[in-house]
Every structure is written in structure tokens, then in C-alpha cells.
């Protein structure tokens, strides 16, 4: 079967895992929000895999993509440089003055999740004053921490795993974890709808899911009702 190579716009946090699922496609990884915006501007994407459900839903509402389905879930962790220059041992240490905290921009899914966590723990004001930069996607956060330029940053647990040895991770209490659901949909303007759908299926299929789990993602559960932001 002659299968066309399709273009997948996927959240930065999927950078490592998606090629493992299907290495033949073309990928554009970045902040889900940026990708969504690009699709609105007419980017030739076939599939959109976002680190939240909100963005695909918005596109769907605009008729720009099919109804999104959740294909995996994730959790956030705090990453620190191996040297841990700021001597951080718990999330509460993030309130220490002078800590260089790197987060993603509020528009980026991981950014909004970060804000939710801090809100849930009533740390918002105390911690946000230590933010030194708002990156454009989760991998930027990871990089700045891995480089040792930032003292700490909020990323997905899956991201932390991609740079073993470079960073140490701190758990975020489960009760504070936001509901991180990844939504995937087929872009309406796609010229390769069937192949696009095929890719989506591939991700949802056993093999795909296995790969996701191996990468540290959580099993997908039934689509949750849209949650208010």
C-alpha cells in the first residue's frame, strides 16, 4: 500500500517518543500553543498532537480539526541541575529568595499546568516571584535546567527521563497534580486524511501505547469532560 509521508505537529514533550512509534513521518515539535497557532495560519499539518485537550478542542470548534481524543496522560515534576546549586530539596524550597526558577509561558500547556500546581498548593505568589524566564515550550525549560543556567524548572516527568544524569527530579505531590491529558486530532485541511487517521490509530493501538508507557507516559483513560481553565 503506497502510504504518503504525513506531517505531524506534536507537543515538544513527545519529541522522543513519537519517532519511536513511527519514524517515517515528518514531525514538527514545539509548544502546543505555537503549533495550534501555526495550524490556524494554514500550516500544512496532517495530525495535531497537543499536550492538552483545550487547544485541539478550540481548533475543532473552528472546524480546523476533527474531534480530539485523549491518547495519553502525564505528570509534572521539578527538575534541578545535578549540582543543585540552589540547594532545593522540596517544592517548598522554590520559595527561597534568589532561586532561578524556569517555567514555560502561561500559554504553553505545561506552563498553565505549572500555574495550577502552584495554585493548588497556595504557593503562587511565593514561587512566581522567583521565575526568571517563561520559555516557549517545555524542552526549553528542561534545557536551561540541564545546562545549569536555571536552578529549577517544572517539566513533564517524561521529559526529565530524556536527560538522565544531567538533572535530578523532585516529585510534585500527587494531590497537587493537574489533570494532564494529551489530545490528538486530524487536521481538516490535510490532504492525507486517511493516512493521518492511520497514524492516530497507530498511536492509540497497543504497540503505540506500549511505546508511550515505556517512555513514562500514563495510560490513556476515557476522555474526561472539558475542564474549565
Amino acid at each position, binding site marked *: 500500500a503506497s502510504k504518503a509521508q504525513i506531517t505531524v505537529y506534536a507537543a515538544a514533550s513527545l519529541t522522543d517518543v513519537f519517532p519511536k512509534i513511527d519514524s517515517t513521518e515528518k514531525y514538527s515539535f514545539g509548544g502546543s500553543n505555537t503549533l495550534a497557532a501555526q495550524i490556524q495560519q494554514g500550516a500544512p499539518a496532517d495530525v495535531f498532537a497537543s499536550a492538552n485537550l483545550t487547544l485541539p478542542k478550540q481548533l475543532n470548534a473552528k472546524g480546523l480539526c476533527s474531534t480530539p481524543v485523549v491518547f495519553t496522560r502525564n505528570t509534572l515534576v521539578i527538575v534541578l541541575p545535578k549540582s543543585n546549586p540552589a540547594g532545593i530539596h522540596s517544592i517548598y524550597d522554590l520559595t527561597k529568595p534568589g532561586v*532561578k526558577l524556569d517555567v514555560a509561558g502561561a500559554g504553553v500547556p505545561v506552563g498553565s499546568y505549572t500555574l495550577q500546581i502552584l495554585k493548588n498548593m497556595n504557593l503562587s505568589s511565593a514561587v512566581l516571584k522567583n521565575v*526568571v*524566564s*517563561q520559555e516557549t515550550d517545555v524542552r526549553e525549560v528542561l534545557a536551561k535546567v540541564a*545546562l545549569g543556567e536555571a536552578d529549577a524548572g517544572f517539566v513533564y516527568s517524561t521529559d526529565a527521563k530524556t536527560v538522565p544524569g544531567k538533572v535530578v527530579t523532585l516529585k510534585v505531590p500527587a494531590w497537587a497534580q493537574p489533570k494532564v491529558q494529551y489530545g490528538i486530532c486530524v487536521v481538516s485541511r490535510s490532504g492525507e486524511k486517511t493516512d493521518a487517521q492511520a497514524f492516530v490509530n497507530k498511536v492509540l493501538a497497543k504497540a503505540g501505547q506500549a511505546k508511550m508507557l515505556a517512555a513514562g507516559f500514563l495510560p490513556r483513560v476515557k476522555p474526561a469532560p472539558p475542564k474549565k481553565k
Partner: protein
Amino acid sequence: MRRRALAVAWVAVALVSFAFLLLPIVAIFAHTSPGRLVDQLSNPVVRDAFRVSIKTSLIAQALILLFGTPTAYLLATRRFPGHALAVTLVELPLVLPPAVAGVGLLAAFGRVGLLGSTLDFFGVSLPFTQSAVTIAVAYVASPLYVRQAIAAFEATDPTLAAASRTLGAGPVRTFFRVVLPLARGGLIAGLALSFARGLGEFGATIMFAGSLQKVTQTLPLAIYAEFDQNFDATLAMGGVLVLVSVVLLVTLRLAVSWQRSPSTTSPSLFGLSTSS
């Protein structure tokens, strides 16, 4: 007549070029009504970004002027072993992709960079600070000024400086009374260029300084950040920057033409030379 045709074709090509260059700008303003544009100016993100941009740019340009001018003069007037190398070095950031410059700056002044520990020792940490933005801007913008400055200094008739010396003026007086006034036009032009370049700095800044509203988020960074939030704000900021740029360019034009002598008669390709 064959010649007419040629001339027409020639002009046509030029017109296409102009259209291409003009269109995006027209588009920006087509999308944002002046009203919207003004509204956006009250959008805190835009306002903060504007403030950060202006502040860092001004400091950066001051530094460029302070260090660039003597350097340029030296390169323009002295010939020493490795001169060509020095000039190349000065121009390097011009051809260096900003992202690379950013990486370089991190590798040099970052916490884990070459000078990181040294700076740490003095309790200085540059990344994520406004100083980082200034440094990034100064780094990528400086060549535009220095090149123009070198050219301007080279263009000033050396015998005039010599005359000043034989008239009893020392090096300093000669420089400020004769050389500088004569090079002025070129220097202003150069500064306008580097200011514009600095104002548009993106790659190096985001790498070296990150992007934090009120602190390190310059207009270009804000544009990128807002791009996916609200395109209007983006366009508005774009509009603002276009206006700023135009102003700068006009300054530049004036400065240059002011230095240049009135236009000479032109080589007559199509029939006759028009004497303006």
C-alpha cells in the same frame, strides 16, 4: 523599439521587487486599524516589552558608541599585522546566526560558561538578567555600527587630519575638531542601523537572556510569545516596530545624504543621462 522594451522590462523587474518588499508592511497595517494599534499600546505586555526594548537598546547603543568608535578609528587609520583579521573579527557577529551568538554567549558568560565561575566569584550572574539582553543586543548589533564607522573614518581625507596636526593641534583636538565632524554623517547612519538591528534582536536574546515580561521580554520576544495568544497584539506590536524602523531609516537616509556630496551625473545606459 528594442531599447524601449528593455527599459520597460528593467523597470518591471524593479517594480516587482518593490511590491514584494512593500506587501508585508501594507498587510500588517491592513490588519490593524490605527485604533486597534493604539489600544494595543495600552496592553501591558506590549508596553512592558516596549520599555524593556528601549531601555536595553539605549544602553547597548551607548556601549557600542563608546567602544566601537575608537576601535573603528584604529582599524580605519592604522595598518598593523593582523589588521585584516581584526576587521574580520569585528564583522563576525554580522554573519553569525543570532542563535549561535546566543549559544556562544551562554558558553562564554553562562553559569557553566568559560567565565561563569569567574563571574560567580564576583557574585555576578548574567543569564536571565536585563544585562544579558543588553549584552546580546550589543553583540549582534555592534558590527553594523563599527563597519559604517570604519568606512566613514576611511572616507575622511587624511590630509585634513595631517593639516590639523601641522597647525599645532594634538591628536585629541584633531580627532574631535576635524575627524569626528567629518565622519559624523556616517557614524549617525551606522548607529541608526545598529539601533534598528538591536531592536529586532531575537535569537541571541531568547537563548542568552530568556523571556520574562518586564525584565527580559523585548518586543520581538513578546511578538513571538503573543503570536499564539492573540494575533492582533502581534500585529499591533509589528506595526509599532515598523513605524520605529521607518523613523530610524529616515534618520539614516538623512545622515548619509547629508554626508554625501550632491548626486553626480549618472552613467547613461538608456539613451540620455538625466541631470537632476
